């Protein structure tokens, strides 16, 4: 099913919790349409009714959609290329990376800012953050990159982030492109320290996209970095694909319409968030905060939360007030969208069973498929399930996704099945599939 069909802007829809009664009340002065915002948000409860006086669990779907319209001029980029030049990059891979960096330089404009950091055991700032004026000179520097020894990923990320941070003020779309082909082997190597660093950089407005090349890198780490840093995750299987992926990421980046998205879910006293599928919420006093990836023009993403509802007497209640703050990439202004999620508690159980929201139900199915996939990948990584069993699990998950219209992801899974049957390891592809499913792509 085409994604755009999921959003129903039509008149009253019985299936849906109606939160805003547009065109309803004749006594009320209708407000003029507010200034066009680059993204919109819709929050939907899994059911507009709940059984009164009884505790229950419910889901809340937050859908975010960016309009496909061209905004004004694009905001300039503040981009850092963080390039692995460990010994294993020797030969073709490094040559393709240089070519890819060259493409990036060609695509940038003079008001964009670029920095280039390389890492092996040591970290070098090949080019400090500055405007892309003399493209030829920049490319010459890039062409001088040579391979070293080990992989000090942590310090590479730290150095790249500080290059981005060295440009003061807003007005730029910040992004680091982290390219690596291996596990960290020097410096700080543990998963939690590295993703902790990345999360800290994200809180300062630095988004990181991770690009994993070849069969040796740690897909769990790179997907974890992208997840916490709000960027994208790519698996590049062959060296000749490197330039294409860089180009794709850069084009995506140039269409970012909203960045630094932060969802705050304010909860009424008797409500608790149990989980946000595939997300890492931080919990406050009667609230949960979720960081969401940057949004590109014409794209959609979502967050699905499971909430625990305490018993309520009959009546209409706000379960949650959802606030989304983000920075509009064309104006640089911070915008806020908010919406209430309302549920009516009733003694009439038939109302509850008749009003399950099919859209939310579909998203729950997708979240389940993603969890199944995660379990299969972990099972394969730890060799707890056989390739044959993995294929069986993947077939099931694929069927679930096909029935929910997730065609692209279903195709990825078929590719993974083919990989297993051909004796190859599919975890790197599947990690990307999980990541995209969890983003609501």
């Amino acid at each position, binding site marked *: 099913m085409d994604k755009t069909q999921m959003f129903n802007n039509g008149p009253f829809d019985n299936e849906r919790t109606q939160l805003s009664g547009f065109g309803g009340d004749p006594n009320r002065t209708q407000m003029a349409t507010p200034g066009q*915002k680059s993204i919109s948000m819709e929050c939907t409860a899994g059911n507009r009714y709940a059984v009164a006086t009884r505790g229950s669990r419910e889901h809340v779907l937050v859908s975010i959609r960016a309009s496909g319209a061209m905004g004004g001029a694009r905001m300039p980029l503040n981009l850092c290329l963080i390039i692995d030049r460990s010994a294993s990059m020797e030969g073709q891979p490094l040559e393709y990376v240089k070519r890819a960096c060259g493409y990036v330089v060609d695509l940038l404009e003079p008001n964009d800012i670029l920095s280039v950091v390389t890492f092996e055991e040591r970290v070098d700032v090949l080019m400090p953050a500055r405007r892309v004026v003399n493209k030829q000179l920049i490319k010459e520097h890039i062409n001088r990159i040579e391979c070293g020894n080990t992989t000090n990923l942590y310090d590479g990320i730290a150095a790249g982030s500080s290059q981005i941070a060295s440009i003061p003020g807003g007005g730029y779309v910040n992004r680091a492109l982290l390219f690596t082909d291996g596990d960290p082997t020097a410096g700080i190597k543990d998963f939690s320290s590295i993703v902790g660093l990345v999360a800290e950089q994200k809180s300062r407005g630095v988004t990181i996209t991770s690009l994993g090349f070849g069969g040796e890198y740690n897909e769990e780490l790179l997907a974890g970095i992208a997840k916490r840093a709000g960027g994208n995750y790519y698996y590049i299987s062959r060296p000749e694909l490197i330039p294409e992926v860089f180009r794709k990421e850069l084009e995506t980046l140039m269409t970012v319409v909203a960045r630094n998205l932060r969802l705050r879910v304010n909860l009424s006293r008797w409500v608790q968030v149990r989980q946000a599928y595939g997300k890492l919420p931080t919990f406050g006093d009667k609230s949960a905060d979720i960081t969401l990836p940057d949004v590109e023009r014409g794209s959609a993403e979502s967050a699905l939360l499971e909430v625990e509802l305490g018993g309520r007497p009959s009546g209409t209640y706000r379960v949650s007030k959802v606030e989304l703050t983000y920075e509009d990439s064309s104006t640089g202004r911070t915008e806020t969208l908010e919406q209430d999620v309302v549920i009516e508690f009733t003694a009439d159980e038939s109302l509850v069973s008749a009003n399950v929201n099919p859209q939310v139900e579909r998203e729950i199915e997708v979240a389940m498929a993603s969890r199944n996939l995660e379990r299969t990948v972990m099972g394969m990584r730890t060799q707890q399930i056989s390739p044959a069993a993995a294929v069986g699990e993947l077939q099931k998950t694929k069927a679930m996704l096909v029935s929910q219209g997730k065609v692209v992801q279903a195709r990825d899974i078929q590719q993974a099945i083919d990989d297993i049957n051909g004796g190859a390891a599919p975890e790197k592809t599947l990690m990307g599939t999980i990541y995209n499913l969890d983003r609501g792509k």
Partner: protein
Amino acid sequence: MSVDKTQMADFGRTQMVSPSGEVTQMAVSTTCPVCKTVSPGGEMYCADCGFLLSSQPVEVAPVVSSVVGKLVDTSGREFDLKPGANTIGRQDTDVLVAHPTVSRSHAKLTVTGSSFLLEDTGSTNGTFVGNAKVEPGSPVQVRPGDEIIFGSVMMRLDGALPEAVAEVVAAEDDAALESVVAEILIATDPDEATDTTPAQALSEPVEPVEIHEDEPTLARFIAGDGTEYIINPGENTVGRRPSNAIAVPDPYISGSHAVITSEEGVFTLTDLGSTNGTFVNGDKLEPNAPRELSDGDEVMFAQVSLRFVI
């Protein structure tokens, strides 16, 4: 279809003031008919319970709360406990803890009338009450105020101290009760501590536990900001990880940094080979070489300075 607040809909809402553009809308505060919380004027929903303020509750029959206790993590996030068995784990459990060190099915906390029974259900990283490991299949009694560790996630059990348990504790182990009370006092806000929990409201009134200020206090570390870390008898591990008895979340402190042992009034501090070192009054400790502490010593774990007080 997200909208500005100004455009928020009137979901069957009675207009409080005639909708004339000439009249400034009055802001009249509203008392929620369900929970009696006063919300500022202009709010559509009760600020506390979310009730649609313009509607009338169909019935005001009290909702029987089934919450008999809570697990509270270090961030203050609360997980309700219901009567009977509460499963704890990372997937499809009553208490859902999304942490990599927590097993999918990790533990079970059974609440019956007057007691909390904790059982490990075969977790990978174990369940601990204080420093004691809960062996799978051997349930142990836990009490409100106890700190329970699932994998590396620490939670405090909150709830009424049921009368029967209080008596048993008093008879059995005065010292244990004191430490429980001390932990409650440290862990909770004084206002919160006097709050009546739902369980108390439902059960027989509980005799308040008396706290004498002149009771001897335990040895402790005091940080510059007033944070106190109690040193219990026996071994107290110090480190960045939450599983330490004294967990100090500073990035320069090693995950397992040092250990302080309290034995018959003698306190010894041992560095466990930490990256950034342990210092007593400015002297760096050699790793694994115990050093006796005296009252008032200045102890530094990496860059964190604490005063040792007996």
